[in-house]
């Protein structure tokens, strides 16, 4: 493969790939599958066809420039041919968190903008905000609303935090940071609403440095106290009436602490580390200055580049510092443009290095959505995925804390792995007839080994050792002579799909 031919080069240009000359066949197209495992959550058959006709550069551009694709995935909800949703009453993702979870899963399966959804998931982890605390403070309806509402469906035009992040999925990081600092859900989640002049509240001031930008080791405790004062007065107000009544960001000058704030890192371009004392009326500029400084801090660039590397390229081994620096440079030189960053990353030699294939531990949501895309969704309601996801350790809109989920190996406790295996069994049960019909249509039922070869192509895993393949073959022969009957294809097909999608190898992406 040409990715290997490029491997020896050290010049900057060598980090990019040349266009892929040929399209290989469906389901053996390793490039498209790798790209969509990372830039999406696996590939539906129609996605394999669509991206399979493109060169790599075209495919990356299509994924990154997703705003060119106009399909409204939400309009497909409830339509025949797609995964189902199940609501207690009227489906209301704006006000019912369980419905919002279903909507997001539906989008992840059926979107034609996979990178937008994938980045939204990334930002949800990065700016991890949990529903429960909001619901305790505001009630369940409002708690869901400030996370999930779309302006077009909300009487007050509320754009929930995750809709803001979806809209900015590949936006400018400084804009995202500014929007997060003003976001009502975040203002409750990290207690900004109680940050006052007399009693600065440190929670947001700490986490914006520790978790959202520069990272541990690049700020001091006095910086935390200063940041708390910087954001004093950033609050919410209730406006509108009736159904349109809602919370909105307000800068409350009366609660802003106006003395100068000095940091251990530069705030201004000339290296000045001090935000000057300002009149309360103009004190909101303090926060904008700090956000600007944090967005442009080289430690932020490296922190984000490292996090993106681990999410998109590899979790195995330490990231190549030169590569992290190259991504960080693109971030800084582009003025924090995430589109430029992701285009660079997805075209990089590291991304396409065969050694980095299957070098990530899938998040539960990635695993589950990919399994639906591979095994099938007809007759499956995403509502029945919510409890399994919780058992696997990932509930959307409910990260365990502000640092998000524990990634990598931490996803694979025994009970979480068992939950993945059991979801594989649940899906195989649900799709039993479809699985058998698919095998039959492909004439894969002639022998145990043709069936095995067929499903190994349909459910692509990290390479299976020959001993594992032999066990699967043994399993197919275990309970009686091979007839290839419909009943046998249902039993063995579903059992095989269970074993493959529940395998350790399938968990790597």
């Amino acid at each position, binding site marked *: 493969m040409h990715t290997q031919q490029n491997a020896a080069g050290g010049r900057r240009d060598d980090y990019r790939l040349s266009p892929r000359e040929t399209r290989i066949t469906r389901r053996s197209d390793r490039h498209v599958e790798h790209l969509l495992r990372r830039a999406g959550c696996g590939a539906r058959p129609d996605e394999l066809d669509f991206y399979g006709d493109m060169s790599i550069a075209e495919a990356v551009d299509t994924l990154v420039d997703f705003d060119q694709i106009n399909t409204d995935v939400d309009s497909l909800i409830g339509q025949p041919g797609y995964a189902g949703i199940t609501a207690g009453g009227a489906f209301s993702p704006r006000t019912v968190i369980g419905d919002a979870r279903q909507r997001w899963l539906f989008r992840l399966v059926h979107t034609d903008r996979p990178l937008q959804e994938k980045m939204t998931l990334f930002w949800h982890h990065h700016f991890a905000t949990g529903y429960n605390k909001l619901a305790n403070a505001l009630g369940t309806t409002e708690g869901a609303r400030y996370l999930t509402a779309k302006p077009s469906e909300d009487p007050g035009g509320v754009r929930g935090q995750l809709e803001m992040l979806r809209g900015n999925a590949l936006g400018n990081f400084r804009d995202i940071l500014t929007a997060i600092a003003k976001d009502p859900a975040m203002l409750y989640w990290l207690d900004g609403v109680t940050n006052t002049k*007399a009693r*600065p509240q440190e929670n947001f001031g700490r986490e914006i440095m520790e978790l959202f930008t520069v990272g541990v080791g690049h700020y001091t405790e006095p910086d935390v106290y200063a940041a708390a004062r910087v954001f004093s007065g950033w609050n919410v107000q209730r406006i509108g009436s009736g159904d349109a009544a809602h919370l909105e960001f307000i800068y409350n000058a009366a609660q802003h602490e106006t003395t100068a704030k000095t940091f251990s890192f530069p705030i201004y371009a000339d290296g000045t580390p001090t935000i000057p004392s300002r009149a309360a009326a103009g004190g909101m500029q303090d926060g904008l200055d700090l956000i600007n400084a944090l967005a442009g801090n080289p430690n932020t660039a490296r922190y984000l580049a490292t996090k993106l590397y681990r999410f998109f390229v590899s979790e195995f081994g330490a990231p190549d510092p030169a590569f992290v620096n190259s991504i960080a440079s693109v971030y800084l030189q582009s003025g924090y443009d995430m589109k430029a960053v992701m285009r660079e990353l997805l075209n990089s030699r590291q991304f396409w290095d065969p050694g980095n294939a299957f070098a990530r531990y899938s998040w539960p949501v990635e695993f589950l959505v990919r399994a639906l895309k591979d095994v099938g969704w007809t007759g499956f309601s995403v509502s029945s995925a919510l409890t399994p996801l919780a058992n696997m*350790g990932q509930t959307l809109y409910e990260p365990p804390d502000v640092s998000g989920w524990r990634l990598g190996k931490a996803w694979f406790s*025994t009970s979480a792995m068992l939950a993945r295996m059991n979801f594989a069994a649940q899906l195989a049960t649900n799709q039993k007839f479809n699985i058998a019909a698919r095998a039959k249509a492909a004439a894969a039922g002639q022998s145990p080994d043709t069936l095995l070869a067929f499903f190994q192509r349909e459910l692509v895993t990290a390479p299976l050792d020959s001993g594992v393949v032999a*066990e699967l073959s043994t399993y197919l022969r275990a309970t009686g002579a091979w007839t290839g009957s419909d009943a046998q294809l249902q039993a063995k097909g579903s059992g095989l799909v269970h074993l493959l999608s529940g395998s350790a190898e399938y968990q790597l992406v």
Partner: protein
Amino acid sequence: MKVTRRQFVTFTGGGVAAFTMTYAAPEFISQLALAQGAHVRNLVILYLSGGNDSLSMLIPYNDPFYYSRRPTLAVPAGQVLQVGTDASRVALGLHPRLTGLKQIFDQGRLALIQRTGYPNQSRSHFEGVDIWSTANPANAAGLGWVGRYLDALPSPVDALVGWNTTASMPHVLQSAQTPVPAIASPSGYAFSSPNSGAEATAERTSAVRIASHVPVDRPELAFVYGSTQGALATLDRVATVATYDGSLTGTANYPANNGFAQALKAVAGAMVRGIGTRVFYVTTGGFDTHSAQNVVQTNGAYYGLMGTINDGLLAFYNDLRNQGLLDDTLVLSFSEFGRRISENGSSGTDHGSASVMMAMGGRVNGGLYGTAPNLNTDPKNPTLENAAGDVAFETDFRSVYARVADNWLGTDSVGLLGANFRKSSLAFV
């Protein structure tokens, strides 16, 4: 290729002290030991997640600064559950909701170790948890201290030697070669299949056989194999715990709506059923009380937190006592930090420093250890730090771990912790 995953490894040159044979023993040996009346030593690690405001848990109720610095949060002196005075003659009282812990304290089976922490204590939740988990402030990215202990057990180590009652792997249990099964709910810990009868059996057989082909040349993948193996190897024994009902023992009452208590019920069940587990991990969260901490109000946030731990630990204590297992069990609590002394503008408390650790069990020498902070705002106050904003640590938390390692786990704390943290006055076990 069938691979033996476990090999005997000594840890950091510290050597492996003599273990009683039951530590790593397969189930049948431990049952034999039980039948012979031999005692085992179970360790239950309790993590209070979020940074426990220990000044609201163990209250210096005669300190005027406690009241002046916490105008909305202080518990009135008349409401605390008095537990006497410590070595510095500070009168202390438990939070009023801790009536069960007060009973256990009065029975001499609860030790409260004051002002535990470490130099330059991190105020970050995540770094803090890592430090408490690894017992290594200098490099908190390594294995957990309990994980290292498990790694040093002589092989073969039983797949159920540890039991994590949460769904995810806590850092304290992270090990190089001794994966601890995460069993949040014993009843949900079962193998599913799209088929039934012989087909389902064949599938499970195949899953077990596949899991034995550990790809040792691919360590990241092998880790997932370890989880699969761990699950499949423990399903049947865990199923015996799913039926354990603490109410069989009369006075034990694990509240159904208290997840922490339910986790402890599973722990007790594992002990009662004698499935061989020796190290357990339980946690309860909500301690990150930046706002509306409501220490005193009976429906308040911190009051509720105290209710959760009180009711869970009391039920567990009573259950173990009734089962004759109290002497075999040590519960050790930690939290990543205490909280700021002065309350903030949100009727809450921000991240602070030293805190209180608890040790509970039948062989615990109960009482007050260490000395309480004096809350005087004088910046020179030696019991405080950060311009008298935070409680300064007096006892390094690693000294507490060292006591547990040496006197309970029967291992060498110097080897386990990488240095000598022994402190003879900490004779709580």
